[in-house]
């Protein structure tokens, strides 16, 4: 048994135990939460269809592969799988687009391949940066966001470099 596969079951058990202990109606609470998230997932669908069209045609035409080849000197230097380059570019711009690309990488390379693992780590440890910064400052009267975007992108770039490194370190090749 490895530790990372035990974290989730332990966490779930802990939440349920605490809920029962605090006399929460776990059935009502669970179904309420599930219903909320189902609605959100369905709301995601129209955007996902549109992005799937863009990413799907880009991949089928061979342009995505050509782009990865073009960037291969940089990705090779960083020890980053070339297949994941398009994901790294699209991740800060579009969440649904990144989901569509991640699905392609997992299908093409396999989820347990080096590229599949790096793509998963990159997806799990970054956010839709541009959207987040726009939404957060959009709610205020702030005009100058100073270096908020720059700092967040510095985080994204380090995640890009570190994801390949972390996979090598923790999971081997």
């Amino acid at each position, binding site marked *: 048994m490895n530790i990372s596969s035990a*974290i989730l079951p332990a966490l779930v058990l802990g939440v349920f135990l605490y809920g029962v202990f605090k006399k929460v109606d776990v059935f009502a609470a669970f179904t309420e939460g599930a219903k909320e998230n189902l609605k959100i997932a369905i709301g995601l669908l129209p955007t996902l269809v549109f992005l799937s069209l863009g990413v799907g*045609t880009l991949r089928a035409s061979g342009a995505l592969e050509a782009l990865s080849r073009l960037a291969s000197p940089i990705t090779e230097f960083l020890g980053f799988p070339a297949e994941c380059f398009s994901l790294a570019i699209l991740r800060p711009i579009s969440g649904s687009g990144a989901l569509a690309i991640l699905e392609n990488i997992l299908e093409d390379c396999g989820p347990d391949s080096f590229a599949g693992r790096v793509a998963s780590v990159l*997806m799990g440890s970054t956010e839709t940066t541009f959207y987040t910064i726009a939404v957060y400052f959009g709610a205020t009267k702030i005009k100058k966001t100073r270096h908020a975007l720059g700092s967040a992108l510095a*985080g994204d770039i380090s995640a890009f470099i570190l994801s390949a490194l*972390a996979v090598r370190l923790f999971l081997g090749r």
Partner: protein
Amino acid sequence: MIGILLFLMISVSVAYSAATGSTTAVSNAIVSCGGDAVSLAITLAGGMAVWGGIMKIAEKSGLTEKLTALLRPALKLIFRGLKKDSAALKAIAMNVSANLLGLGNAATPLGIEAMKRLEEEERPEAEATPNMVKLAVINACSAELIPTTVAVMRAKAGSAAPMEILPCVLAVSFASLVVALIAAEIGFMGKKR
């Protein structure tokens, strides 16, 4: 913006396929992409529903509140110069704990609330205050404890251990968050706070 991006993606694909003779593959992709998106959304919906259910129990039992209280001292080190009973700091703590638990859709309204409170308490003119920049940066670097969406997608693709990426995700999220916060701090050096 996303519309322009997609327009570019589709035009590049069509032009590239016309030049390289891969038009059959592109027309197949156009026909099948809708179905692919629907099956992806259904897979994600299942995973999200389970997580939403579990986290609702955590919320109703007061577990998320406990996490919020636990985070406040640490957050005080990042968000400096706020009053002791600052409503902004409370909203920030709630926002960060929602992010940690993977409650993305609860985290955003809480974060916007925190941003507005910061604006009230710090009264910036047209320029963002350091605390506002840091709040936006933290939210732009996901700090999720359990990468459920990715795990669901890995399971669907036939992974032997969908959750094996967990230590990597934790390490990379934390490291990139630190880099982003340091970058934010460096940007304020020598300038008016």
